[in-house]
């Protein structure tokens, strides 16, 4: 990311110009298969010789325990919830993502700031504040958005992990039970993701396709980004 840029008010104490690696974000709602595809991408990239670092939402050393505790208590207001995510993200950005990019790694982000934007928006109907808060984040080189419709998603989640309190947005009291709430909450999230897909030019991948097709599509989006990443191998044959 030779011309790395901050999303808004950046980190004044940090120069983003020496980041050699690539930052690739995979977005999409809960249960859409992001994590599986990211593991497959890592394998694919490492076989080609790229160093890969995966960074996961709420997985920072500083905050992961705090966020779990907070969620157990179910006592979160909109601001604290979003700020906990922001703190987690900042910790990973400064201690994990930026150092990796500086050393030339490909960083695969399992969810990125757009997840926080969507979640905050459905709770507040305000887009400004949360985007201001995340102003210090780096704009990724590529965002792939795994898009799914809520009917397919509901079936898939029931078949696999089951529905949980937070993925169903039960704090919003949108429905009387987990199932109704899940569908309403996830529809709102998908609606907002769709809007952001236009605004921020995500590469939209249809997540209802077979895993093989999805993986192929993801790779086809990633390849061009990496092309100008590694120095050309056969410089001697470049025509003058």
């Amino acid at each position, binding site marked *: 990311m030779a011309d790395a840029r901050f999303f808004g*008010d950046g980190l004044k104490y940090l120069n983003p110009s020496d980041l050699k690696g690539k930052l690739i974000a995979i977005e999409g709602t809960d249960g859409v298969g992001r994590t599986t595809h990211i593991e497959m991408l890592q394998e694919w990239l490492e076989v080609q010789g790229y160093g890969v670092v995966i960074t996961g939402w709420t997985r920072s050393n500083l905050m992961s325990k705090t966020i779990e505790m907070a969620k157990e*208590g179910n006592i979160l207001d909109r601001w604290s919830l979003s700020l906990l995510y922001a703190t987690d993200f*900042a910790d990973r950005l*400064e201690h994990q993502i930026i150092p990796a990019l500086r050393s030339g790694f490909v960083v695969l982000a399992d969810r990125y700031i757009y997840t926080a934007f969507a979640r905050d928006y459905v709770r507040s109907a305000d*887009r400004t*504040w949360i985007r201001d*808060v995340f102003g210090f984040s780096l704009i990724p080189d590529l965002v792939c958005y795994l898009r799914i419709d809520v009917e397919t998603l509901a079936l898939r989640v029931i078949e696999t992990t089951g529905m949980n309190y937070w993925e169903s947005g039960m704090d919003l009291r949108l429905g009387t039970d987990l199932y109704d709430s899940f569908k309403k909450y996830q529809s709102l999230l998908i609606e907002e993701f769709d809007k952001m897909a236009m605004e921020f030019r995500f590469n939209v991948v249809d997540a209802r396709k077979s895993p093989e097709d999805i993986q192929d599509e993801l790779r086809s989006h990633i390849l061009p980004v990496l092309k100008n990443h590694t120095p050309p191998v056969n410089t001697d044959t470049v025509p003058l």
Partner: protein
Amino acid sequence: MTESHLPKSAPHPYPGKLIIVEGIDGSGKSTQLQLLHKWLESKGHKVFFTEWNSSDLVKETTKRGKKSKRLTPTTFSLLHATDFASRLYHHILPPLKAGMIVLADRYMYTAFARDVVRGVAHEWVRKLYAFAIKPDMAFYYNVPIEVAISRLLGGTRGQFKYYEAGMDLNLSPDITESFRLFQTRILAEYAKIVEEFNLLTMDATQDIEMQQEQMRALVEDALRGYKPRRGTYGRRTLFWRRFEIPKSE
């Protein structure tokens, strides 16, 4: 993108009153607020007190982060904002809505001063706190750095703490010198904030009693027209005891 939100300049709509104090460590602001608390209670007001970085949710994390020296200017700032948001939601807004008086030892201006000195963007930290409500009264206890240092070293504290002295900024290996440099920069930020947000500047070098007298006079003036809401629980139990109303009614 929509236009950015900055801290609210309009008064909050709640029947209660929010009074806050600001100032560097050693300015005596906490002492003044405690004395004000006593006085307000003696006048029959129901008063709630809240202080910076004290919510159950975040305190432990901040402590852990500070201990491991893992905090960066940005995570430091965000953790304090999370703590503030949690306290605003749980401790400040409910009593204000109920018409009570809330006293806060430090408010968002602490972040505007400290976090900017630590290196986060001036605009960013203001947008971060756009959800905060404007206090009804905001006192700034202004004190020269040497007075603050001699109070802290001579008083109960004895020694400075790592982050309080801004040791994370590597200003000086000597903790007292680091405190002096760090807090001097904070004083300079406060001087700008006082203008920007119209804080009431108090001379924190005066005697405690004299400062308190001035503070009480100002608060008394500001509370004119404010109707205190007292808890009704005590009165209700008395009422029942006196009249023994039959259960069937």
